[in-house]
């Protein structure tokens, strides 16, 4: 059949040549080696896996997330409050919130004079805290009774009632002093082992 006005551009033989050329191009392009799809894993593993001990990891987590228990008994409490506020900013050590409940606290900061009438409450609250727990005796009165040591109503030292980890001297100690005490608690936690507790 002949269509009037139509002239084929290429002949049948040319079509075969073009097809062959296209196949050859595709073959040539697919000869590169295929990239390993898990290649990226190697670098990520090197970046993300650390080898350490369980003790170190647990102590690291514990020492950087201590929740202190508010225990302001006298004037030392104001230095403790200043430590928690923005200028000295205890949140830098992961101690963002002072807890009022002993069940949520790890560190009891006993700030101030302990009277014998308060002593049973101090002991009870210490016993209500969950393990692991630490205690800071803040100020001269909590350490030894301070000026009121000879008094009829004052406990001559917190360590007569509960075990104490760190003593922070001063009357009252500056917030820097309390922060130093907290750093000592961190050091103590880092040297502990979960087996012993």
């Amino acid at each position, binding site marked *: 059949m002949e269509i009037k006005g139509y002239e084929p551009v290429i002949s049948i033989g040319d079509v075969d040549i073009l097809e062959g050329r296209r196949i050859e191009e595709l073959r040539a392009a697919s000869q590169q080696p295929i990239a390993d799809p898990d290649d990226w894993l190697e670098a990520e593993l090197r970046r993300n896996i650390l080898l350490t001990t369980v003790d170190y990891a647990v102590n690291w987590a514990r020492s950087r997330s201590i929740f202190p228990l508010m225990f302001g008994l006298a004037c030392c409490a104001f230095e403790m409050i200043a430590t928690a506020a923005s200028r000295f900013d205890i949140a830098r050590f992961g101690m963002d919130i002072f807890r009022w409940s002993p069940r949520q606290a790890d560190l009891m900061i006993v700030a101030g004079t302990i009277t*014998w009438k308060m002593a049973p409450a101090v002991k009870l609250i210490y016993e209500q805290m969950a393990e692991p727990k630490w205690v800071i005796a803040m100020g001269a009165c909590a350490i030894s009774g301070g000026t009121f040591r000879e008094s*009829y109503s004052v406990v001559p030292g917190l360590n007569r009632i509960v075990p104490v980890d760190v003593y922070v001297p001063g009357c009252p100690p500056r917030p820097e002093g309390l922060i130093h005490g907290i750093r000592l608690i961190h050091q103590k936690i880092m040297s502990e082992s979960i087996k012993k507790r």
Partner: protein
Amino acid sequence: MTVALDCEQVARRLSQAVPDSVLSLEKSAIVVKGEKLKEVAGFLKGDPDFSFDYLANLTAVDYLDRFEVVYHLVSLTHNHSLVLKVRCYERLKPTVPSVVGVWRAADFQEREVYDLMGIVFQGHPNLKRLFLWEDFAGHPLRKDYL
């Protein structure tokens, strides 16, 4: 500022209203007899010229030979004040009548004085130790307490 009343004038009125009640006069205080204290307190609170409706403070002093209980009275209506004192020479069981019936504020203050000084307030509804615990031996604000 609250005006301190002239003790002599008050004492004159007192001895008219409650005869034989004033023991002596001090520079800024009236010492009344213990057995007349309740009458004196009632008169000072009820009399419209004085109307001492507010017991600002109640405390005690140990002079070794005697105890003195001190009452600081204030009138909120007239804005004037007065100091009353009662003496007690007994040392083993010093007794002073309670004024809780006149001023309710005396309740805790008398308990504190009993706790620390050992003065028994006759007629107090609940005379127990306030600051120290039960079974505490002695009264620590006495001068001879060791």
